[in-house]
């Protein structure tokens, strides 16, 4: 196989060289994500009735070209920021929080419970209390997989994944049962939350931006600062890049691992509550449509950077707008999911390709020693 790769590369006049350390990772990641987005839009356009120029102008109007577009994008991006952070922070330690979906619903559940228990409390303290409850609910939902990871060594992937499905039925139990909307029998949704728990919008120029988006941006910046410039942040970076070294340096690896996972779960919970008080105003399955999983994709593309999470949350919100314009298939969300998947395939390959470099063939002068060493090892440039 390697020989074939080498032969093909040679015919192209190109050569693949292995990098000893992955280089230009950010360039590859961003570049491959862009390629993925372009390819998936091109494919979707090919199957759609919408023309290219019409699509581009609609996309511009639907995103940044109009005040409504800006409102739509920031509204769609708000939960993605929270859920992106929820996956991105554990990823700094190489941990996968793929349970953001469940944590989101548990956080929103705690917030809704507080609102239904204290219906007469005035707005600001009630919302603050709800958000605090949501942090706790989300952290609680990740606690079991986190403890199992730290004390049993069971992959956190399995636990966080499966608890999403448990949370799904938890939502049904409360939204269809205890908190059922007496006015509408259809759908998994509770009655309306008390009016004063509604989160207002900010006026930015002509556009209205949800307050939740501003909160999300603020949290992302705070985490970025904490990781950059505090002792805990330094310990996280160290544990993420070299667990052994961190252990010998006396870092409390277990406590730090648990803490990072709990923060991830808590932020996912907060994302659920923000989506509820900002947009949906009810408890139910409308709070998320795989947002937790999209958050993981965003975290991967952002590569552990909180600023990257902000950028890709907005990018993915724009992709959603674009998918809605095209509307190929049964529901527009299906198309968007396929596009996210394709983008991620490209991004994943791009990350891998950061380990090799393609160079135009320039045969270096080999002395006999190098040539014989290469012949002996049977290893060369082209075995990708």
């Amino acid at each position, binding site marked *: 196989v390697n020989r074939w790769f080498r032969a093909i590369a040679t015919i192209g006049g190109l050569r693949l060289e292995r990098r000893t350390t992955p280089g230009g990772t950010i360039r590859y990641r961003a570049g491959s994500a862009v390629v993925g987005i372009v390819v998936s839009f091109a494919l979707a356009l090919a199957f759609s009735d919408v023309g290219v120029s019409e699509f581009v102008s609609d996309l511009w109007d639907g995103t940044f070209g109009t005040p409504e577009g800006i409102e739509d994008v920031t509204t769609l991006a708000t939960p993605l920021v929270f859920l992106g952070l929820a996956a991105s922070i554990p990823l700094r330690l190489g941990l996968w929080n793929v349970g953001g979906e469940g944590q989101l619903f548990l956080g929103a559940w705690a917030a809704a419970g507080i609102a239904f228990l204290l219906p007469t409390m005035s707005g600001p303290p009630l919302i603050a209390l709800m958000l605090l409850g949501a942090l706790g609910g989300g952290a609680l939902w990740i606690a079991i997989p986190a403890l199992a990871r730290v004390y049993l060594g069971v992959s956190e992937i399995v636990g966080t*994944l499966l608890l999403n499905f448990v949370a799904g039925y938890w939502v049904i139990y409360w939204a269809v049962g205890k908190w059922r909307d007496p006015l509408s029998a259809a759908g998994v949704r509770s009655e309306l939350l008390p009016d004063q728990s509604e989160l207002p919008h900010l006026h930015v120029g002509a556009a209205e931006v949800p307050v939740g988006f501003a909160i999300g941006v603020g949290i992302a910046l705070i985490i970025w600062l904490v990781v950059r410039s505090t002792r805990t942040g330094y310990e996280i970076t160290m544990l993420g890049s070299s667990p052994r070294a961190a252990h010998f340096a006396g870092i409390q690896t277990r406590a730090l691992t648990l803490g990072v996972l709990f923060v991830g779960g808590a932020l996912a919970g907060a994302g659920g509550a923000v989506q509820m008080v900002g947009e949906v105003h009810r408890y139910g399955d409308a709070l998320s449509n795989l947002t937790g999983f999209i958050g993981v994709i965003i975290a991967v593309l952002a590569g552990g950077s909180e600023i990257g999470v902000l950028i890709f949350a907005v990018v993915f919100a724009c992709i959603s707008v674009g998918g809605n314009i095209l509307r190929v298939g049964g529901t527009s969300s299906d198309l968007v999911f396929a596009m996210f*998947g394709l983008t991620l395939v490209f991004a994943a390959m791009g990350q891998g390709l950061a380990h090799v470099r393609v160079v135009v063939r320039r045969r270096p002068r080999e002395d006999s020693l190098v040539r014989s060493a290469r012949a002996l090892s049977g290893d060369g440039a082209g075995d990708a």
Partner: protein
Amino acid sequence: VTLNLLASSIATATLASTAVLIAATGELLAERVGVFNIGIEGSMLAGALAGLVATNSTGHVGIGLLAAAAVGMGASFVFGLTIAVFRANMVVAGLAITFLGIGLTGVLGQDYVRQAAEQRIPRWNIPFLSEIPYLGEALFRQFSLTYVAFLMPFAVWFLLYRTRHGLNLRAVGESPVAADVAGIAVTVWRLVYVTIGGAFAGVAGAFLSLGQVGTWIPGMTSGQGFVAIAIVIFASWEPLFLILGAFLFGALGTLGNVAQALGWGVPSEFFSALPYAGTLAVLYAVTWTRTQRAGQPPWPAGLGVPFFRGAD
């Protein structure tokens, strides 16, 4: 009455565990060569849709199953290429395949939603055995594919532990570097077994759309691919234990029917969530007892570790 209920519950549990068991067998093959594939959820969905479409357009359920296997293989081959050749992270690539599966089946399957399979996987009453009172009803009046699913782990066990091929296979998962030095093309083996695992996942999905459920519903796998991954861990990567894990999942799923029949008055959502929560709880309990005894659980040492010659 109780014996009747028990027999019918075991029958339902066996039925409900089939898809998970097939998917878990495929996942075990992939993990035994060191590849952790969370994309099998996507492969299952693709298989479920492809199986139904192929069956309804040709009228032959056998062709439907073949199509499901082929589509599952295709999805897992893409996954294998991205991780083994393009060096992508396994979790990322798996998530990508799952998203592709959800999205593409949603887009392409819009005309087939709730369309009934024109031909179902045949049921097969085993002669004599199915006539045994209670036991026959419980175990031997199943879909033909169910018997295959429950025999497959034995075949995999034989392959892994009684053939030279299986020795090589395990070597690739346990120590890719050593296998490479011994002349085994690690990348090729990983690609091949991930692809074969995908065929299992595709057939598992088709078992839902052509057997257990009999129609196509978007997202109909409802996380069974993820459950299969949990079952592989529960089974400590031993094929024969897969049967136990899968049956446990199926049995937990039927407790709701039992509760209804006996009038326990527990909310139905509890029993719907139980297969997921229960599988996870048992997984943790088993791992806990094992770590008490023997330290680390016995996963393939090369699991999840990418292999590229000269990368170290």
